[in-house]
């Protein structure tokens, strides 16, 4: 029995080293959508804790399925958001946005950030005056909140088969 003890300890040590190396969560991630909510529970119908905006850096606390628990810097607020709202990359904050001051070095930014923004659209519109964007703008203003969608499903008696999150 004693013979086994030392090699086992060594083995345990190696395994735990390996485990430590692998447990590094990305400490911070950036919000890659214009605006989204941190919610009290990992679901779209959870109560809203805070609103976060494009390029804001969040500190990652936990994950559950496709949901990530994150907090604003300095522990201002913590809540859940869907992973599709986040990127590991740093993003350049929009000029004039509240998180505009940046210490981001250009090398860290996504290459695509240089293209396809409002300036390009303006250029396209200038060159293609027959293509109207007015209905696209109207379309964007159609706003349905997750809460309204949830109410819609309830009224229609739509319930998930597996009892999973909607």
């Amino acid at each position: 029995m004693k013979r086994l003890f030392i090699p086992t300890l060594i083995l345990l040590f190696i395994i735990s080293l390996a485990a430590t190396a692998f447990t590094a969560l990305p400490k911070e991630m950036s919000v890659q959508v214009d605006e989204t909510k941190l919610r009290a529970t990992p679901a779209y119908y959870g109560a809203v804790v805070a609103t976060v905006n494009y390029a804001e850096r969040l500190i990652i606390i936990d994950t559950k399925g496709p949901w990530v628990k994150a907090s604003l810097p300095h522990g201002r607020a913590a809540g859940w958001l869907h992973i599709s709202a986040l990127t590991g990359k740093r993003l350049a904050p929009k000029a004039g946005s509240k998180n505009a001051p940046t210490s981001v070095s250009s090398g860290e930014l996504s290459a695509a950030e240089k293209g396809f923004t409002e300036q390009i659209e303006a250029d396209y519109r200038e060159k293609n005056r027959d293509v109207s964007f007015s209905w696209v703008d109207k379309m964007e203003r159609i706003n349905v909140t997750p809460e309204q969608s949830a109410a819609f499903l309830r009224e229609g008696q739509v319930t998930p088969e597996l009892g999973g999150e909607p």
Partner: protein
Amino acid sequence: MKRLLIIAIMLSFGSFLAGCQTLEVATNMGADIAAATGAISMQQAESIKRGTQAAGQAFEEFTPENKYYIGRTIAANILNKYNVYQNQEATRYVNLLGQAVALASDKPETFKGYHFLIMDTDEINAFATPGGFIFISRGLMRCCTSEDSLAAVLAHEVGHVQLGHGMAAIQGSRYTALGKVAGVELAKNLGNEQLAQAAEVFDGAIGDIMKKMIDNGYQSTQEYDADKAAITIMKRVGYNPRALANMLEQMQKGLGPGAGGFGKTHPTPESRLRNIGSLLQGSGAVQTPETRKVRFNKVMAGL
């Protein structure tokens, strides 16, 4: 003692495995996380990754904001070809339903969210742009005999967004050309020359996507993948996935020989039905509660 050791080893190994899981969290955004933690199956994760790989590495280089601007311009071009069916009640209904479906997808978050409009045409057609602008024709809505079927159509379109099919239509050479636009990562206002270069790539990308959506259609496998995504989404929300089959059967009747729209760009309803057959086992006939029927019929009555 021995038992203790075994337990200790098992615990260590367990934490090692958990560590691997978080490594995936650290290195692979989205698909792997969801799969590793059981939110989506490994097959789904693979299919997401395949979709990404198909478009080449550069695909992921485009930010949701880039996709949003591409989507806006595609949407404007679609609306240059099709009139909007201006009925507030029907538009609201499609948006409530579409939003519910989108939130249950693997990509509920786009830069400025999903938005839905009805196109005022008898043609059987629908489009989904990068960034989540989704269009459905009156003709296609008429192929739906229940809210569940309409959910299937919208979920199929959300599937195209989730799987990045619009972006995949962009030719590889555009990425190369965009990469050559001089290093202006932080400059939100491009210089004249850079603007001209980037604008040319943008125009090309818009052309690629429009051609694919309007004329050539996606690959059959992409349509089947969107159908599969739709079934997954429907199950998550609580709609009967068999309603997709119902809709395809109706579409089969509606698509005469030489029909435009889906008749030109999509695999036949028959082949789509064959492809989803095995996924519908266990789903009974579509029976919707009275309240759901009433609201659906009310919207359809005007169409």
